[in-house]
């Protein structure tokens, strides 16, 4: 109100030209000043402690509020990352550098820097490994075929082989081999997830590039049914043998289907050795090396023995340790943890 009084005075005493400029300046400036003071005051009075990480992430995000992440603006996304454990790779405008920044704030470095590639979780869908329910002669598209009696593949979880994923791939990383099966070129795949979205069955899952053991089945049918319906014979029957064998508790079975938690998996391939239907594929099978301690460098710190999932390493403290080659599964955990780098995989 003081402002108005002053501007009135000016209007009364000053010349006409003066007041036509002063009054508006006074009023708008006064409004701005009042609002500014109120806001400054309010920010103190109504101050709320927020997780500092949210603020940090907001300052890193591009601030375009484009909504590409599926959240309502950058603030919403930052909040979702911190509180709802949202994926940190959703910001398209920010790209890889933004993701790396967020990763460092959230301490998710290891996961973020790891490239993922698409992996088919089905071993059916080719020319000679599929039980066809009927002969589909419609539009050459999985999305179309899936609408007719749950698709032509007898297994209602399995691949139908109409290559929607191949057409969706922007990098030509998916090809069809001589058996009619789709293969992912690990070098070309960028893990963009276009094929994952295109597949109406959801059998494609993005898996960290350095994981070599996966369940090649998505059937949630009961074991006996899955065995009959699958044309490849490599269906998961949910027996749970792999769960018992896994040294890191990375496998869970639900709805008659085993799933590997790729963050926990150590690539040891033990699950593949016990799988009765060979539904678990071990790409390193036969190529796996065994760990060997070079006696000269060993200081007997026992770290390797503590980390061995199968208790293949024995030895007293401050004595040279020995690895039992019969028991060793070649997971490489000991070599990774050895402070003297004296364990070799041979």
């Amino acid at each position, binding site marked *: 109100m003081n402002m*108005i009084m002053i*501007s009135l005075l000016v209007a009364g005493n000053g010349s006409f030209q003066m007041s036509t400029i002063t*009054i*508006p300046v006074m*009023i*708008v400036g006064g*409004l*701005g000043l009042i*609002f*500014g003071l*109120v*806001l400054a005051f*309010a*920010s103190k*009075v*109504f*101050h*709320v402690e927020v997780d500092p990480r949210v603020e940090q992430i907001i300052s890193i995000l591009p601030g375009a*509020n*484009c*909504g590409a992440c*599926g*959240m*309502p*603006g950058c*603030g*919403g996304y930052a*909040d979702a990352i911190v509180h709802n454990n949202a994926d940190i790779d959703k910001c398209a405008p920010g790209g890889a550098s933004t993701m790396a920044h967020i990763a460092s704030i959230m301490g998710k470095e290891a996961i973020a820097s790891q490239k993922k590639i698409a992996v088919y979780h089905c071993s059916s869908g080719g020319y000679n490994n599929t039980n066809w329910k009927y002969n589909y002669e419609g539009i050459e598209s999985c*999305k179309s075929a899936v609408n007719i009696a749950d698709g032509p593949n007898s297994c209602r979880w399995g691949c139908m082989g109409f290559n929607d994923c191949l057409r969706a791939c922007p990098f030509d990383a998916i090809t069809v081999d001589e058996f009619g099966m789709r293969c992912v070129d690990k070098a070309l795949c960028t893990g963009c997830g276009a094929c994952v979205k295109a597949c109406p069955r959801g059998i494609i899952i993005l898996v960290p590039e350095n994981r070599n053991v996966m369940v090649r089945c998505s059937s949630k049918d009961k074991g006996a049914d899955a065995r009959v319906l699958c044309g490849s014979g490599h269906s998961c029957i949910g027996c749970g043998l792999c769960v018992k064998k896994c040294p890191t508790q990375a496998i869970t079975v639900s709805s008659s289907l085993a799933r590997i938690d790729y963050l926990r998996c150590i690539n040891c391939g033990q699950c593949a050795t016990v799988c009765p239907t060979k539904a678990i594929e071990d790409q390193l099978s036969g190529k796996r090396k065994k760990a060997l301690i070079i006696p000269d460098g060993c200081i007997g710190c026992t770290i390797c023995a503590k980390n061995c999932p199968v208790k293949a390493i024995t030895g007293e403290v401050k004595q040279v340790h020995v690895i039992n080659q019969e028991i060793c599964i070649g997971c490489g955990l000991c070599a990774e943890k050895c402070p003297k780098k004296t364990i070799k995989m041979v």
Partner: protein
Amino acid sequence: MGYLGKLFFMAMTAVFINNYVLSRFLGLCPYLGVSKKLDSAFGMGMAVIFVMTMASAFTYLIQTLFLIPYGLQYLQTIAFILTIAALVQFVEMVIQKNAPALYKSLGVYLPLITTNCAVLGVAILNTKATWADGAHYNFLDAVLNGFLSGIGFTLVLLLMAGIRERLEYADLPKSMKGMPIGLILAGCMALAFYGFMGFKI
């Protein structure tokens, strides 16, 4: 026409006939940007209703207390933007402190509409709008008009989000996916709303 009749007239006008998005083409940014998912569209709609109502009230006061007495109507735009921006910031702070649950559902949308043209549009059109007998809106009329305009905006936003959620599964040519089909859709909806223009109340 009694007051209820006038109210009905105002509601029909604000929600259907002069819908802010589809007839006045204001607020197209949130209309296309936040209409991908139904629940975020709903949150946005609620935030718009809230801000439009508040903004109508405050800008009406600014207009009658400051601008008109000093003949400063030409400063309307800048004064209103100032008022709305400050108001939304203030309200955001208050609900963040006192109503965390409300802030969770509304808060993230509030900064997005601080300087939205639909909100400013309501404020400015409130000062220009007249009843059939030539009388200007009074304070209550302005607030009600802001509220109803917000309802109209929310209605259209929800319709759009509902259609776009289904459109995700449509087999569209690659070049039409996303924004292009969204704009065509907006055009079709505007045509449909154009039908309300002929209403005589």
